[in-house]
């Protein structure tokens, strides 16, 4: 039995493991992927200062540090159920049962699908699957592709696919209907791209951000060229919609159509654009299935990507002994996930030693670092993350050991 079991060896889980092990805890990390690193493994982008963010390297550094500190990391272990016992947690996996006193869920995010007609054909995949194939398995999914769904994630991965030698023919949006929602509305898509920070990872996003400060999206989308604009030489076409993915036994292209700023379809412009494979990019949502079966309370916060388990700034959930960190608490960049992991690791150490006072300064410093990292984040998946977080934590119903203690002392 370990002091701490962490589910998920992504940036959040590994950083938590390091922080907790540094405090002397015995820590085990399990992950269902064959390699530690989580979503870091797919990440490769250039930052405004010219440096490259190489996720694979970052993941290796974190795993190495964890190993040095005596953390056990086990891959290809899927957790399918969890129960709470008198002395802690029993976690059921495809490789047997694990026991631990404290439990941290760092399971990350999952992609939200947008069902486009024909999306069940072979050769259609999520944008994240294409990222994993290209950057992790080093397999080129095809020579040419079309991406349906215009958001930060699809724009970042479009460039990665281009670096893999894929001809990304265009990024378009799904046709507006009950399943596509805002993703199918040109004005709303442009508006959300424009609200992205000036720090955004691609020059075109930075430009859109600047324009966003000057013109209303309603006007901007009217001015947006029908042919689209180019980003890393890939056409971004917000006024072209995907009607259907075509192909007999596998996807061979997409039937597209021009749309007006208000989404109105110009049927005369219908045509089929050929491609070897088609990616659907519907955005990300926290992967919180394990928190749900344990019985955590949830809150729906659109800015954080959907339903998140209720937790406080120390990353404690409303269930004693259960912690969360990383994208399960809301969709943000890998650096924020790492900073949150550190908070969780320290808080769990304080919880186990029951010495919150001793740890208070370092926990508060780590929390401060989460906020700083968040404000400086290059990739913001949704606008308004910081404010939504602040509101959420102020109202947090999780009544915590250390908070009540601190209050008592103040009184």
């Amino acid at each position, binding site marked *: 039995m370990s002091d701490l079991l962490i589910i998920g060896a992504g940036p959040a889980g590994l950083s938590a493991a390091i922080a907790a092990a540094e405090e002397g805890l015995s820590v085990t990390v399990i992950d*269902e992927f064959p390699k530690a690193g989580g979503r870091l493994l797919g990440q490769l982008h250039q930052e405004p200062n010219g440096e490259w963010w190489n996720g694979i390297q970052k993941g290796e550094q974190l795993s190495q540090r964890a190993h040095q500190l005596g953390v056990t990391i086990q891959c290809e272990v*899927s*957790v*399918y*159920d*969890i129960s709470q016992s008198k002395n802690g947690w029993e976690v*059921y996996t*495809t490789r*047997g049962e694990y026991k631990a006193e404290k439990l941290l869920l760092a399971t990350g995010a*999952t992609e*939200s*699908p947008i*069902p*486009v*007609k*024909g*999306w*069940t054909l072979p050769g259609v995949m999520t944008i994240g699957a294409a990222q994993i194939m290209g950057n992790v398995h080093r397999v080129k999914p095809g020579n040419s592709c079309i991406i349906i769904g215009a958001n930060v994630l699809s724009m970042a991965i479009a460039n990665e696919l281009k670096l893999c030698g894929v001809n990304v023919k265009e990024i378009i949006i799904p*046709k*507006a*209907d*009950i*399943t596509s*929602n805002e993703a199918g509305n040109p004005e709303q898509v442009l508006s959300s791209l424009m609200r992205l920070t000036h720090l955004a990872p691609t020059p075109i996003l930075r430009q859109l951000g600047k324009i966003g400060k000057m013109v209303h999206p309603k006007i901007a989308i009217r001015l947006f060229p029908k042919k689209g604009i180019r980003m890393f030489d890939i056409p971004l076409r917000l006024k072209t919609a995907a009607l259907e993915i075509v192909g007999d036994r596998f996807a061979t292209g997409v039937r597209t159509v021009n749309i007006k700023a208000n*989404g109105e379809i110009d049927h005369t412009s219908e045509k089929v654009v050929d491609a070897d494979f088609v990616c659907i990019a519907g955005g990300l*949502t926290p992967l919180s*299935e*394990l928190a*749900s*079966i344990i019985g955590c*309370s*949830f*809150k*729906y916060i659109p800015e954080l990507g*959907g*339903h998140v388990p209720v937790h406080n700034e120390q990353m404690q959930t409303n269930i004693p002994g259960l912690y969360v960190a990383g994208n399960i608490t809301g969709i943000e960049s890998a650096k924020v996930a790492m900073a949150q992991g550190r908070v969780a690791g320290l808080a769990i150490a304080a919880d186990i030693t029951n010495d919150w006072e001793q740890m208070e300064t370092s926990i508060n410093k780590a929390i401060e670092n989460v906020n700083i990292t968040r404000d400086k984040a290059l990739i913001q998946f949704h606008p308004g993350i910081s404010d939504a977080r602040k509101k959420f934590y102020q109202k947090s119903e999780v009544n915590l050991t250390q908070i009540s203690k601190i209050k008592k002392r103040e009184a």
Partner: protein
Amino acid sequence: MVVKSDDNKIICRCEEVSLGTIKDIVHHFHCSSREVKLRTRAGMGYCGGRICRTIIEKVVQDINNEKVSNESQLSYRPPIRPVTFGQLGGSENDDES
């Protein structure tokens, strides 16, 4: 703006339930996403609803004009990953028999 021909597009891939079927059920029975699941098996396939859950919930909420609630109606149930009987029962027990 919903084009009729789109109703045959698949929403639940595992159980092959179309958008049209889900819409019909909601209109006919004025029901929740949970009832849609029980009536059509949408969300009860091999993937355990990992792919279709959010879409079903969204579609039903839209038709019924409901706001997104904090607790999900389509609850998660263990096992949340496909597992073999051997893994569930413990392989040691298998060897004994």
